[in-house]
């Protein structure tokens, strides 16, 4: 509409232009009236009445969704959370998928630390690990973009690229029929993110920080994904069994209304052990 009004011939443009403010006001009022006329949403709904098929699975949050809250709560030592050794690719596909998830999570930590060299190193490592599970092609562009944006210190853009790398890897794996392996990438990221969250909250405990661990539906979702794995071999993989046990052990700890400092430390110990198992050469 705007374009039609502004591209008319001279005389008509002269005729219409003075009407523009009034037309815009009318249009805005129209939107406002449409909004006001729309039925207000109910104050409460009965979620149990939603058939299972009408409920979409939870989207796994990216680590930075949690990290930026921690930033608001205090001044975490992000550099102290970065690892020198990002882990060893053992050639085991389940391990590579989990490891890739942890490395991408490290990318988010490096962004919080504003450490462009580390971000660049992580961008390269993502490429190497993606190669190990045949999805290198899917992340080449992302890897370059991560490096370029880290160089420019455009941290919000790096966050987006890391999120994008995660989606690209998962998408490429799903295309290859490896969607169960793709879940392990998400799980790896979540485990490393939770390790860092509990480390920071454990060092400077506050109930508000500990509340970030309240993720029951996400835990259920991950547990379901492993329990419903069609590939028996993948389900029996030592690391996958360990991750399933981790989810089982964590659930009662974070299901409580207030998560104590002791419980935060417990979750940190459990996730640290699992991250060590993922990054170890002994798989």
């Amino acid at each position, binding site marked *: 509409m705007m374009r039609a009004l502004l591209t008319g011939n001279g005389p008509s443009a002269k005729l219409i232009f003075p009407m523009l403010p009034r037309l815009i006001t009318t249009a805005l009022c129209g939107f406002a009236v449409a909004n006001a006329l729309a039925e207000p949403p109910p104050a409460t709904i009965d*979620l149990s009445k939603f058939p299972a098929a009408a409920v979409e699975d939870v989207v796994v949050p990216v680590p930075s969704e949690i990290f*930026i809250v921690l930033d608001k709560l205090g001044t975490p030592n992000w550099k102290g959370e970065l690892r020198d050794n990002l882990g060893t690719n053992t050639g085991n596909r389940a391990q590579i998928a989990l490891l890739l998830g942890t490395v991408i999570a490290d990318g988010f930590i490096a962004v919080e630390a504003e450490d462009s060299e580390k971000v660049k190193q992580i961008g390269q490592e993502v490429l190497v690990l993606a190669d190990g599970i045949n999805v290198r092609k899917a992340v080449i562009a992302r890897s370059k973009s991560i490096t370029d944006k880290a160089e420019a210190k455009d941290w*919000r853009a790096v966050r987006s690229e890391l999120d994008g790398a995660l989606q690209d890897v998962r998408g490429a794996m799903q295309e290859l029929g490896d969607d169960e392996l793709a879940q392990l990438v998400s799980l790896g990221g979540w485990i490393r993110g939770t390790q860092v969250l509990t480390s920071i909250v454990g060092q400077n405990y506050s109930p508000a920080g500990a*509340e970030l661990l309240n993720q029951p539906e996400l835990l259920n979702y991950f547990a379901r994904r492993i329990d419903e794995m069609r590939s028996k071999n993948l389900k029996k993989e030592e690391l996958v069994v360990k991750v399933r046990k981790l989810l089982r052990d964590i659930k009662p700890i974070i299901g409580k209304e207030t998560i104590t400092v002791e419980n935060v430390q417990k979750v940190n110990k459990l996730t640290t052990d699992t991250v060590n198992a993922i990054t170890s050469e002994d798989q």
Partner: protein
Amino acid sequence: MNRRFLSLSPVRVLAALAVLCLTPLYATVDDALSFAHECAVPYVKQGFTIREDAWGGDLGVKDQKAVTAQLFKGNEYWFCMATDVKGAVINVHIYDSQGRLAESEAWQKGRFAAAKVVPKATGTYYAIVTIEKSPQERTHWALVYGYR
């Protein structure tokens, strides 16, 4: 320009009409997703980071879908929904795990709708998407969210 249009052969006109008629068949969730990203543009300018992950599908008129999201107290979120179907009216509202309306703002303008939530507690939330009306039997929709 108008004259050139009038001089088109009937075959060309028929072909153009056929393309126009077939267009809705090729409309996909990807198109709806592009509109959802368009809907989110003002929030990007306000510092929200839009997630690459998205939800989408197709629904009939008055059908609803509950989209589960893990949200964190301390963040602000905008959920942006869109459809590629011209003339459709959609909406999205956010509820907490107890089924209570949790959004602080919401708007709806035809094929676009959005809701903002500033979670009072960390936990599971549900974005309830609805196709209020549509000229089509099934309407593609897509939902993205941003956080800051």
